[in-house]
């Protein structure tokens, strides 16, 4: 009848002879063939297995399932001529399984509780936020209370990897931003023959806002993610636990140096960012807009004062703190799986950029209120 079995029916007695390989690789075909077999309404079914070439556990399992189906229909089944102990083994496992507790709903889709889940999530997030604030306070307090000797070296390392190493990319990005600003403002100012005021616009935008903002966003992408990934991996490999056991407080040796390092590095990086931005503006002025380098710098001295530069630079430590705290906090929250590590690294970056922009808005409002 088919490649796997032949059926012989005689007055209530069904004989099913099995052929070929009843193995995992043929499972789909086996199931189809078996589904097509219908027994005589009552009587007995005999599986004759002597013609089997090979049988593995999966093959034995479909046979067993079929025999159970027959039994449920009130048909007695028996097996003939098994050479291997597979069926016995299978029976043994299934008996074991029957003795184990049944877990209700294991395969059923879970009912959806939209509102309840939503409220639970809000609660969980609130607790997490409170927990985070406590965690940061604890870390900072630890750092102040018992400064470790290891902090200095580690901080310098962080200044290097987050600050010095980031100079080229930040400089390029800000140079290009200077170029863009110069072009865009020149197009408007040309209409009034006021090309030279391009210098005011570029300098204001770069020094007060964009230099520090771009530097902070680049650092959030570079270092925020690195912090989260590094601490998260250390958490997964129990390195953090190892530090604790050795009497080192991870807050002190891992988190404080990262916060300190970034708070030192970002303002310095901002200086480079500002310089590169202005250079970009000057470059376009000299090459496209007929404003010589000398004219640019002369106008610059008139247009801006020290306070403009300070507006940008004073934001930098705050941004740095936000980036470092978010990155390290998310890293320390990793537990369990590699997937969690990836998720929290993403969260660290997205959240720190979000916080930077919120903080920037706050700064701008406050500074303009106090006339800074």
């Amino acid at each position, binding site marked *: 009848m088919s490649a796997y079995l032949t059926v012989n029916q005689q007055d209530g007695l069904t004989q099913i002879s099995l052929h070929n390989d009843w193995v995992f690789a043929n499972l789909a075909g086996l199931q189809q063939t078996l589904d097509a077999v219908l027994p005589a309404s009552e009587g007995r079914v005999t599986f004759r297995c002597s013609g089997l070439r090979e049988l593995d556990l999966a093959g034995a*399992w479909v046979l067993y399932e079929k025999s159970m189906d027959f039994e449920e229909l009130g048909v007695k089944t028996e097996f003939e001529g098994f050479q291997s102990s597979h069926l016995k*083994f299978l029976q043994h496992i299934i008996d074991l*399984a029957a003795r184990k507790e049944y877990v209700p709903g294991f395969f059923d889709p879970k009912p959806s509780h939209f509102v309840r889940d939503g409220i639970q999530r809000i609660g969980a997030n609130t607790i997490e936020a409170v927990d985070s604030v406590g965690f940061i306070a604890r870390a900072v307090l630890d750092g102040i209370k018992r400064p470790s000797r290891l902090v200095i070296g580690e901080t310098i390392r962080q200044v290097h990897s987050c600050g010095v190493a980031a100079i080229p990319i930040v400089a390029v990005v800000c140079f290009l931003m200077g170029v863009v600003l110069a072009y865009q403002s020149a197009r408007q100012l040309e209409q009034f023959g006021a090309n030279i005021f391009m210098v005011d616009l570029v300098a204001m935008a770069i020094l007060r806002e964009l230099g520090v903002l771009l530097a902070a966003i680049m650092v959030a992408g570079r270092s925020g993610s690195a912090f989260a990934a590094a601490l998260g991996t250390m958490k997964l490999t129990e390195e953090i636990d190892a530090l604790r056991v050795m009497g080192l407080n991870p807050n002190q040796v891992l988190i404080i140096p990262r916060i300190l390092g970034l708070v030192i590095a970002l303002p310095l990086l901002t200086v480079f960012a500002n310089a590169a931005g202005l250079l970009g503006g000057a470059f376009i002025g000299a090459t496209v807009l007929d404003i010589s380098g000398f004219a640019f710098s002369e106008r610059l001295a008139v247009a801006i004062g020290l306070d403009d530069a300070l507006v940008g630079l004073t934001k930098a430590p705050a941004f740095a703190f936000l980036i470092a705290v978010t990155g390290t906090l998310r890293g320390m929250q990793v537990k369990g*799986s590699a997937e969690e590590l990836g998720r929290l690294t993403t969260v660290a970056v997205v959240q720190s950029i979000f916080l930077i922009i919120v903080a920037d808005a706050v700064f701008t409002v406050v500074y303009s209120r106090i006339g800074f």
Partner: protein
Amino acid sequence: MAGTHEHVISIRGLVNRFGSQVVHDQLELDVRRDEILGIVGGSGTGKSVLLRSILGLHGPNEGDIEVLGRKIRHLEPGPHRQWGVLFQGGALLSGLTVQENVELPIALHSNLPVETRRELAVLKIFMVGLDLTAAAKYPNELSGGMRKRASLARALALEPKILFLDEPTAGLDPISATEFDQLVGFLHANLDLTIVMITHDVDTLFSVCDRVAVLVNKGIIVDTLDELVKHPDPWIQQYFGDPRAVRARQAARHARPDGGMQPIVTGD
């Protein structure tokens, strides 16, 4: 051709070098069908490198490896459906539950309906002595012993012909380790399985292994344990002369598991 050869794995002239350090020099090894072969050796003798070479995860400098009549090439598909591997740490995918971990190879290598796939996975999970509560958990929620069992269930998902175990009882407490040994013996007795295991556990060696391969002097010495203990090599003498090994040998002589239908106990 399949099913006719006596040796399921044969290694010829295997050479593995790291820089100037030679780990394996012209190593030859045959693994017989249906045996349990234990691989032992001091640290740095290349047990893991040997295993990784057989699995195609490491490209040897020289030599041929054949598994089930198929030549193994570095990082190329091997007989994936016919071997299962239990890695030392379990190597379960941490983002999936135990159930999903066991279903994964079945889903990858067949187009069975979801229902069948699930039930087959459950069967394998029961087979290694876990229950549905454990099946619904993520690997990091399991104890070390349960993680090994779950990983074993995944290794057995495709009805493999060969099972590789990398230090299966390392990191388990003695009771879990003994249970795991019993489980291995039980599976071997009831499935057509060839088992190759790296182990340092002398109890495992004496209680379940048919033959033992000792990595010494960049080569390999394979024999039954009864013969090996008489071997003149100093490392082998030291290894089997160790009080722990002597005790294990005596214990094994008294009670060698018959591999029959003994109940599986879930240890955790």
